[in-house]
């Protein structure tokens, strides 16, 4: 189980890598979205936004109407943000779930995989 501080720290690192990755920024061109994360173990909510090809900071709590809801354990989110976990494995096993339109889910899936591979 990861603490809120650990999760925010891991995300900040992931965000820094992602926003500086031309391949990733090209994948979010014209894709401005609100994404909610829900930790199923600590039952916490987080919000991130994609706007202008950049990922926002992660804020605690669910804010705004989400386009995609990502649910999983705090530990898996931390590992994914640190680049230690292949997110595809967790999607396939159902341990991380994505809820949203098919195209939004497809985009999150691809972005998280590229972030992992480029980490």
């Amino acid at each position, binding site marked *: 189980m990861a603490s809120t501080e650990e999760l925010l720290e891991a995300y900040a690192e992931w965000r820094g890598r992602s926003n500086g990755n031309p391949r990733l920024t090209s994948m979010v061109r014209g894709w401005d979205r609100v994404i909610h994360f829900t930790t199923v173990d600590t039952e916490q909510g987080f919000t991130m936004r994609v706007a202008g090809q950049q990922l926002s900071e992660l804020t605690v709590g669910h804010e705004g109407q989400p386009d995609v809801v990502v649910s999983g354990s705090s530990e898996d989110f931390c590992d994914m943000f640190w680049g230690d976990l292949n997110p595809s494995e967790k999607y*396939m096993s159902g341990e991380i779930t994505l809820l949203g339109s*098919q195209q939004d889910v497809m985009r999150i899936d691809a972005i998280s995989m590229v972030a992992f591979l480029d980490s």
Partner: protein
Amino acid sequence: MSEHVRECEVVVVGAGYSGLAAARHLVRAGVDTLVLDARHRVGGRSFTEVSEAGYTVDRGGQWIGPTQDHLAALAAELGVATFPTFTEGQGVELRDGNRHLYVGLIPTSDPEGAADGIACMLHLDLAAFDVPVDAPWDAADAAARDAQTLATYLDSHLTSASARAILEVAVKAIFGTGSGELSLLFSLFYLHAGGGLTNLARTTGGAQERRFAGGSQQLAEGMAAELAERVLLGAPVESVTYDADHVTVGARVVPPGADPADPAAAHHGLRVRARRAILAMAPALCGRLDFSPPLPGNRDQLGQRMPMGAVTKIHAFYDEPFWRADGLNGQIVAPGSILESAFDNSPDDASHGAIVGFIAGDDCRRMEAAGPAARQAAVLDDLARAFGPRARTPVEVVEQHWPAEPFTRGGPVAISSPGALTALGPALRRPVGPLHWAGTETATQWCGYLDGALSAGLRAADEVLHALQGEPVGLD
């Protein structure tokens, strides 16, 4: 040879999923319908057999995935259970003489290449979702996209050679042909119809998610059982004579046990006179029938420009799925090998092991001349590289070389060469007099798949119902 004559309201040519779905819909609406099929079986490109060693083999289409709602509804109606494709563990990538293990959608031994491939798949899918599935020829830049191949697109959007090779494997598995033969516009349409390349390539959450317990042909048999004597097998159709209001289909009727492809085996001729006909066959096969009057030029050209893909489906059966004990899920991605893609195809209870693989495109064509023994030896070599020496000694190998199948002539689907869709696409579903077109190639959702075959059959049946009621058929 004597000739028999039958009359009905609608004659359906082809007892695959599409033709049977159409006929069932019509019969349920009270329309006198007769289905003819050349083979002594129903199912078309869905073909389940029990092998000599006693294994149930799906020789053709076999998977069901999310959003294949027509297929799911039919399975539920007929009480045919499904079970998940085995995906636990790691896949094997064979490339450049090396063996790597991976988890997920795409091999990751070259992370840079994998990231390049995933980004390209996303951009390709996003482009696909902009192509209207009911009229791809109306897409933005349709002419420009139809003038290039999928290969051109991949070559210009990928920087990594490994990603290019892996995506080519996916393309060949999906279309049964290489990207150099595929119109980009057609490819985008096809991907959109199936929810995107990512969706089509996936097992869990995608097109290969589940299988039918006991095989996919049961669903065709279930539909045929409802139609009973309205399905006539061993009746290869040879001619279609039509005017504005009637159609006469000429067939030869072959007794059970005789080869339907052998004209000398015919017992008698059959002429079926009807008000409407549904041709539930791939466009290229429709073009082999003798139409009188001849079909409009564009419809015939369409058949000439939509050739079948080329695929050999091979099963290797073992006493047990021994690769699972090594933490492997049975999936293989092997660019440049004969067996470029494979899956664990063992039964749900794992009472024996089965790997199913595909030899596709030019590999399939090249290996035709080599023959079954050479094909199987090459496949076992690849399986041994992936799973170790035990893979060399299967209990049985069963192959289905679809291009040699006289009444299918390839698979899994007809593809569209550059330029064909924009010039001829509107002819794909447009009725010609009393002739209506079904088959998975005419589907707008899950084109090329069993689900698309069903929806295409239902759409054609609805057209016929409208036409029989004197209503105009709205198309295009």
